[in-house]
């Protein structure tokens, strides 16, 4: 008997007991739908986190001076005073085969004033490379120029949060704001980046040339910087870049072999790895939940198939008497189980996607439905059918035709 014929027999048997078949499918539907929905929500969340991390910068590596203790007093990260803008320039010049942009960064918390408004915020002294490094978009006006950076011009660009608080609807371009009572001219407005992973508003920022911040706002006798942001040409060279940056800084800081580094590098892969391990654990848990729900659904199928074999024992006997081989009988009942489970799987996929979209729209969560995992879930439902359908089908195929025909 051809597979197509056996398939038709199996489908017909399923339609004879519509209610029972539906209830049997339900176990698989619930299992698959749960897997699809939870995966869609989980993957949506993961993708959003990854996207936010990459929005921090373009192949970003951060270098912090390490706070070396003075006697018993330890400094915090970024508090060491050994790193200078000269280090940044050296990296840019000597490691241009690895690094496409370097920006020193100095910070100053100041009270900003414009007309009658004032706002406390963070002024970041950076170089023009920061646009490339941190993927900033200049929405209005322009970024400050290299020439302005060199001569420590009192110019700045503002983030949207600062713009909103100081200027409201006014056009800030060309206006003068006062930072620590020093006047700076606003030349541009940065495009919005929103909050980062830690909930910090990335738009609450004023950027000025680091030279200007050092000269006018920090007024320090030291030329130290708080950190450096580097943008690598390729993340593939991460290890090499870290090594070479380290070697260069050690040389510039005159560190002897026995001395520890007086700086520390950080990159986003570390954060990505952490997120990866968290989501990895989540995936394991979800897989376990999915496996259990599909196990329950599969047992439901096995149960119904055993009932079905007993119920149709006379049919089995007759089919055997007129020439059905054990393999024919096995295939008939196996296909019936597989059809039940794959129909359940297909409906489960649809219900799962609809459920995820619904939850996503109600809760405002990002939803990501991946074709690969959807196909995998569906394929798994077929595997469940084969696995749990095999025993009843095998039992049917081993029956003796006379016993079946005589069965009362």
């Amino acid at each position, binding site marked *: 008997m051809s597979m197509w014929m056996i398939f038709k027999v199996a489908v017909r048997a399923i339609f004879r007991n519509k209610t029972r078949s539906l209830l049997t499918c339900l176990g698989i539907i619930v299992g698959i739908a749960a897997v699809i929905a939870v995966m869609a929500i989980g993957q949506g969340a993961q993708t959003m986190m990854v996207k936010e991390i990459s929005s921090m910068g373009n192949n970003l590596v951060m270098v912090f001076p390490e706070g070396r203790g003075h006697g018993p007093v330890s400094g915090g990260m970024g508090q060491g005073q050994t790193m200078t803008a000269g280090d940044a320039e050296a990296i840019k010049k000597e490691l241009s085969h690895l690094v496409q942009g370097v920006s020193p960064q100095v910070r100053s918390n100041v009270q900003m004033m414009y007309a009658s408004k004032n706002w406390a915020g963070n002024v970041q002294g950076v170089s023009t490379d920061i646009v490339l490094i941190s993927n900033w978009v200049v929405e209005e006006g322009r970024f400050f120029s290299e020439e302005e950076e060199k001569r420590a011009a009192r110019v700045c660009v503002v983030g949207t949060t600062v713009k909103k608080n100081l200027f409201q609807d006014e056009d800030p371009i060309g206006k003068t704001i006062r930072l620590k009572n020093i006047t700076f001219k606003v030349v541009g407005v940065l495009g919005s980046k929103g909050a980062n992973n830690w909930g910090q508003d990335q738009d609450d920022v004023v950027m000025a040339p680091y030279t200007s911040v050092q000269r006018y706002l920090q007024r320090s006798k030291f030329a130290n910087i708080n950190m450096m942001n580097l943008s690598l040409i390729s993340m593939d060279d991460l290890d090499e870049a870290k090594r070479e940056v380290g070697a260069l800084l050690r040389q510039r800081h005159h560190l002897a072999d026995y001395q520890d580094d007086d700086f520390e590098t950080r990159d986003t892969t570390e954060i990505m790895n952490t997120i990866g391990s968290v989501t990895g654990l989540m995936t394991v848990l979800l897989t376990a939940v999915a496996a259990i729900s599909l196990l329950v659904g599969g047992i439901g199928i096995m149960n119904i198939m055993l009932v079905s074999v007993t119920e149709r024992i006379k049919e089995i006997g007759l089919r055997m008497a007129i020439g059905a*081989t054990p393999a*024919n009988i096995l295939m008939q009942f196996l296909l019936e189980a597989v059809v039940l489970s794959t129909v359940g799987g297909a409906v489960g996929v649809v219900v799962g996607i609809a459920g995820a979209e619904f939850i996503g729209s109600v809760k405002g969560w990002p939803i990501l439905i991946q074709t690969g995992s959807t196909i995998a879930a569906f394929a798994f439902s077929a595997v469940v059918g084969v696995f749990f359908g095999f025993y009843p089908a095998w039992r049917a195929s081993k029956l003796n035709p006379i016993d079946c*025909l005589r069965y009362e």
Partner: protein
Amino acid sequence: MGTKHLIEIRDMYKIYELGDEPVHALDGVSLSVDDGEFVAIMGSSGSGKSTMLNILGCLDTPTKGSYLLDGVEVAARTATELAHIRNEKLGFVFQNFNLLPRTSALENVELPDLYMGRLSLRSRRKRALELLKRVGLGGRHSHTPAQLSGGQQQRVAIARALMNNPPVVFADEPTGNLDTKSSIEIMNLFTELSHEGITIVMVTHEDDIAAYAKRHIVMRDGRVMCDDHGEGGMKTTEQVSQLVKEALS
């Protein structure tokens, strides 16, 4: 070898181990059936006639002994091999019809060829319709068993038995569930088929039904008590009764 028989069994034993004592359902039976014979196997219940039919029909295997069907030894075969033999060489008609429920008469008749896969869809349908016409159900091919009378269901079963053109048809109490009128119709149909050259081996305990057969075999306790080898022409019911009585006395 002599003449080649269609069915030839030699020293056939079927022994069931029930409790302490083994039960000999068949106790060293030897017999042969030639092409075109119409045989009635008779005997009371427990005589071994059903066991005999099951083994002849390749539904069961003997404990001991040889069975040549159409010149081929079939006594010790696997379940799959037996299924192929049943499909290609044997037709079955059962007491309780055994049609697939909620399935049309036509599809019931087509079933043996579905397992054989010899005919195309069209010629399979054509042959099934011809067979239904032949058993007198020309206009009822789309009826399901529930829409047919007992006699009509048995006709469908006979058409199904003939689907793969087997050399022999086995009938197990074919009229056991039928009224007198239907019984006569069914037996007349068997007689016609016999005249057309189809070999029929039938099990019955009713003398009037056995009277339709040409040859009569009477069994008791797993042994053949009497075999008239079809000699002396057709017998009346009374003659059959007499034969059985003499055999068992």
